[in-house]
């Protein structure tokens, strides 16, 4: 290492440290507000550690806003269902496109490539009208079913299975397993890295989704947390202690998943980024 680089070294850590502060401060400031009583927030001090630490904000929003728990469950149910369906359907289709010969598979593959290019904004209004026609407004399926398969991840699974060693499947076939047996007992368990990356992206996407529930759910009981939080803001305007406590509750599940599975994120991003 040249002497010049070692002189730069402390500067590098200073920059890294400053940017870490820039990243963390908004979160810490929100966390801090969620434990402060309103009068402390209004007085406008800049101390990060609450002077009068309290859990009342969390208690209040859970008691005073009976819908809050419901919104949390709605979000969880929708995000988990969307994730499970995507894992199953995208892998099935990706595997078929990579390994099974059937008439129309090439057309199917190019259709999927084409769909990846279509920006979601184009389909917002027609999807709304179709869902309305089906009588699905204000129902879970309105969000879950249209999101249950995604072209990008079908493509990702296809690329994964195409590079998959064929020998295992051939051995399974010799053992008398059909296509389904091979897929569920041999292929899928070995696809864990690809499935993990997909799980995280799809769960986060569904958990954080804002536009779809905003447009499809008008019944307050069917709101997801993201939409509920937005109406909450309108209702408790300037009660930043409550709004921040609610925001922290919404952030926690995604944060936990991120902290535990972050290595799969990088794999997934570099995959989709490099395509």
């Amino acid at each position, binding site marked *: 290492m040249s002497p*010049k680089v070692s002189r730069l070294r402390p500067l590098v850590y200073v920059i890294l440290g400053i940017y870490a502060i820039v990243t963390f401060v908004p979160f810490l400031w929100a966390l801090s507000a969620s434990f402060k009583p309103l009068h402390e927030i209004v007085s406008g001090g800049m101390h990060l550690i609450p002077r009068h630490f309290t859990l009342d904000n969390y208690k209040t929003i859970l008691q005073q806003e009976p819908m809050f728990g419901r919104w949390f469950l709605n979000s969880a149910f929708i995000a988990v269902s969307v994730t499970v369906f995507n894992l199953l*359907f995208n892998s099935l289709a990706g595997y078929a496109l990579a390994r099974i010969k059937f008439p129309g598979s090439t057309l199917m593959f190019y259709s999927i490539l084409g769909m990846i290019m279509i*920006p979601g904004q*184009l389909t*917002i209004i027609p999807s709304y*009208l179709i869902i309305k026609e089906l009588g699905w407004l204000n129902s879970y399926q309105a969000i879950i079913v249209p999101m249950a398969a995604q072209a990008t991840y079908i493509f990702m699974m296809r690329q994964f299975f195409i590079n998959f060693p064929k020998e295992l499947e051939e051995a399974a076939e010799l053992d008398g397993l059909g296509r389904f047996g091979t897929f569920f007992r041999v292929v899928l368990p070995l696809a864990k890295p690809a499935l993990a990356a997909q799980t995280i992206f799809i769960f986060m996407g569904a958990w*954080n989704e804002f536009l779809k529930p905003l447009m499809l759910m008008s019944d307050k009981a069917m709101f997801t947390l*993201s939409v509920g939080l937005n109406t909450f803001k309108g209702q408790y305007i300037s009660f930043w202690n409550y709004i921040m406590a609610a*925001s922290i509750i919404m952030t926690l599940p*995604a944060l936990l998943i991120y902290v535990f599975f972050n290595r799969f994120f990088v794999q997934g991003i570099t995959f989709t980024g490099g395509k």
Partner: protein
Amino acid sequence: MAKSPNGRQSRLRLREALAGYTFITPVVLILGLFMLLPILYAIFLSFHKVNLLGSVSYKFAGTANFERMLNDARLWIALRNTAKYALIVVPCQTLLALVLAAILNMKIKFRNFFRVAYYLPTVTSSAVLVLIFMWIYNSNGLLNHLLELAGLPTYNWLGDPAVALTGIMLMNIWSTAPLYMVIYLAAMQDIPESQYEAAAIDGANAWTKFWRITVPQLKPVTFYVVVMGIIGTFQLFDQSYIFSAGSGGPNNATLTMVLLIYQYAFKNLDMGYASALAFVLAVVIMLITVVQRLIFKEEKLN
């Protein structure tokens, strides 16, 4: 007798095809009903006037929806906001991502910690991020306190049309740069170490190596990051909607293309015109993507 292996083979092929169709059926149904059909329906809607009262009815309108765009003052405001936003956010987030990635690519301690930490805003829901930033931006909030401490002028970030969009821009640079940082970081790891070693023998310092090797090698990735940034600008919705409670205010300062489409479709119930706007937006985004892919491919070939 000679026919039997042939018959077995075609039976096998049939079974294979049947398995294939079973595997893709769920995806065909879902994407067919909620992707392919909506695409065709969107084109149909763009050329019609849609009446939503009672049962939905359509009246052919020719190109009227498209002609209307030329005289739509709010569309031009949304486009101006988008342009202003893209001109500032895209270069800032790209540069920030590049610098952070370059630093994280050095042999430093706690590298993984910093990478994981920096990425945090990207996984947080936009609804939460907007609320946190509104809390920081409010006139008695953290940002104004810090500006005051530094002896700088303070602003009414939420209510003043002159700075409202700036507030959203700052937030988005902060929250999207880490995504591109990870993409840059991955690309940097693909640059062969031998090139740096050769440069080191020639006496190049870290700075020269960065400008002469890293930056030129990253050209295709930079192009990708810039294009994705521009497309992201066109697709901005959540932030503006939550920030302005759906109005695009104060005084249309945070009005974006998708918010405008949303307002026409769900506030004015003018689905035909809103679809035409979405159609034009989609065509623009797809053209940008196609151009990017074509150039990207050429870069790879050279």
